[in-house]
């Protein structure tokens, strides 16, 4: 696990998750915690995939585009590359406002 204590909701106190960012918002990743996200994947798998795709503590993210309908999925810039993911899974990525 990320080593960042978080309540069961998957949301850190006062912090936010990537899934709720709006278009144009920038943030810094503070942790990856897949509890609270429903997936078909075995335990621990979503977290590992996120890390492999560059969503790891310290990464800079910015929401670039939103698809239709429901502003989902989203395209985000992660450091140097662009990544498409759904908001549901993006909940696993905890973020803080960019410094």
């Amino acid at each position, binding site marked *: 696990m990320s080593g960042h204590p978080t309540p069961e909701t998957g949301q850190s106190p006062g912090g936010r998750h990537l899934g709720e960012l709006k278009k144009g918002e920038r943030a810094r990743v503070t942790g990856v915690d897949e509890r609270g996200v429903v997936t078909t994947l075995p335990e621990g798998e979503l977290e590992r995939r996120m890390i492999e795709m560059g969503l790891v503590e310290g990464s800079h993210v910015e929401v*670039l585009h939103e698809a239709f309908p*429901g502003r989902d999925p989203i395209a985000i810039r992660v450091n*140097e590359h662009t990544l498409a993911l759904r908001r549901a899974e993006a909940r696993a990525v905890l973020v803080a406002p960019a410094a």
Partner: protein
Amino acid sequence: MSVLDSALPPRIALVGNPNCGKTALFNALTGSRQKVANYPGVTVERKIGHFVSPLGRRVQVIDLPGTYSLRARSPDEEVTRDVVLGRFSHEDSPDLLVCVADATNLRLNLRLVVELKRLGRPIILALNMMDAAEKRGCRIDAAALSAALGVPVVPTVAIRRGGVQPLLEQIDGAMAMASDAAADAAENSAPCGWSEPSSRDLRAYHQEVEGLLAGCVADAGLPPLATRRVDAVLLHPVFGLAFLFLVLFLMFQAVFAWAEAPMNLIDGAVSGLKDWVAATLPDGALRSLLTDGIIAGVGSVVIFLPQILVLFFFILVLEATGYLARAAFLLDRLMGGVGLHGRAFIPLLSSFACAVPGVMAARTIENRADRLATIMIAPLMTCSARLPVYTLLIAAFVPDRPLLGGLVGLPGLVMFALYAAGILSALAVAFVLKGTVFKGAREPLLMELPAYRLPNPRDIALGLFERAKVFLARAGTTIFALMIVMWFLASFPGAPEGATEPAIQYSIAGMIGHALEPLLAPIGFTWQIAVALVPGIAAREVAVGVLGTIYALSESGDALQSSLAGALAASWSLPTALSLLAWYVFAPQCVATLSVVKRETNGWFWPAVMFAYMITLAYGASFITYRVASALL
């Protein structure tokens, strides 16, 4: 390594993230023309080639599917893992790993390099796309990176002439060292030790990469602004989707509009050739075989070359620009409505060309249920081999009326409707499958969107040339052979004394057609159609060729010059034509599709299901179309 083994050429494998240019490097090294395109997941199986190094050493290269980690999550990535770890049956792990990294995106790419380094195998790191990296203002100290990683690092530009020279030289050096090492370390050929990294390990790799970047990369470069600006429009929730549908519509419209002139040319050439043969040879079986069998049959297929090239032109351009991954992004939510993954768009779009690569491209879909659902509907996308049938019937039965002030033609619109019927029924089938046999939530979508790239005209031209070659080779072999067989079946035995009908009625083909007729009469098919459907299972476009031969053989003297479309218009009713079109929307797939499905699903069960459900849909759709059309018209 045994004495025998050392006689084999040394093997190197290209490993790296998806879309970093491994196949482009493979092509540059070996001179082959494997498919290169700008989206992640192009290569789905291993490809083997050879080249001779500058020092004259013959080397075997293996191109592998891209992956973010050896923890393979989909069937294509398993291939990479098994080759790298030497788990493939009877194969040692490669003597040298060439890790390919996209220099514009080192942070992401180096993590795999760090993971691979732990295997303890000889490694070279190729920093590919150096041209793009320089344009972005990246400043990478390759020497420092090499020192910090402890492996040789070479910059490459896979798509530029001479862009792989440094890699070639480095391979020679590494091979010499690797064979020395292999000589005194027998355990080298044993499967390497590797265990799945935990999330803690992954974070450690990440830290290592951050350290490397801090020491060796002075400037990571600016992200491409152009891509971002273009995406602001193309990924717009409303304009983006509108643009996507416009592109697809234009594609089908162009298949008609652009191909018309060259098709007329080919048509003229074919009938000229036929006339010339008819005038030169004396009347008899040989002349009939040449004109009615080969020229009428093969000619009626070859005429569709321009349309197929227009279709491939669009697909090649879409693939090369990087738009396909965007389409998957835009459609993820909509396709989710029927339970499909956005990624499924890519295999489905390739299925417009041919279902065989489409079914194979589904390998990049991780979840088995999602993948099977995609495979099962891929043949419902109208493949290019069905295009001739559509075109022929449209030419025969749909008047060429301009609509919207000449912007679109009625034939193009009908064509679009046929494609749309295929797509919509595919979605309906997916919905049913995902609601019953393939229940379950969708896999997460985690997909890199590559930077846009201008397609290289030379690559597109070569790609089209390649397609034309394949198509003509097929016309010259499979279709040619089938046409000769069909001509024999349609010509022998000849008509008995005092026959009133054209001779073909009494031939074997005629008998087959008449035997099948009762089965197909409820859906309005004539015995000629029945004859054409049988070889159509081997290669769908042959159906058109067979009709060409049948009608050439049935025609009497004065009708001889009329085109096949004209002959059909004169002898079929409109409901019959519509019914055949409906049949071909679902047309039970060809043998090639069924066998690739068997290979991809490891058994006959799924191909059998596919055949059964498609033939049922085809028969049902034709039945309804025929009945409704007969009642209304």
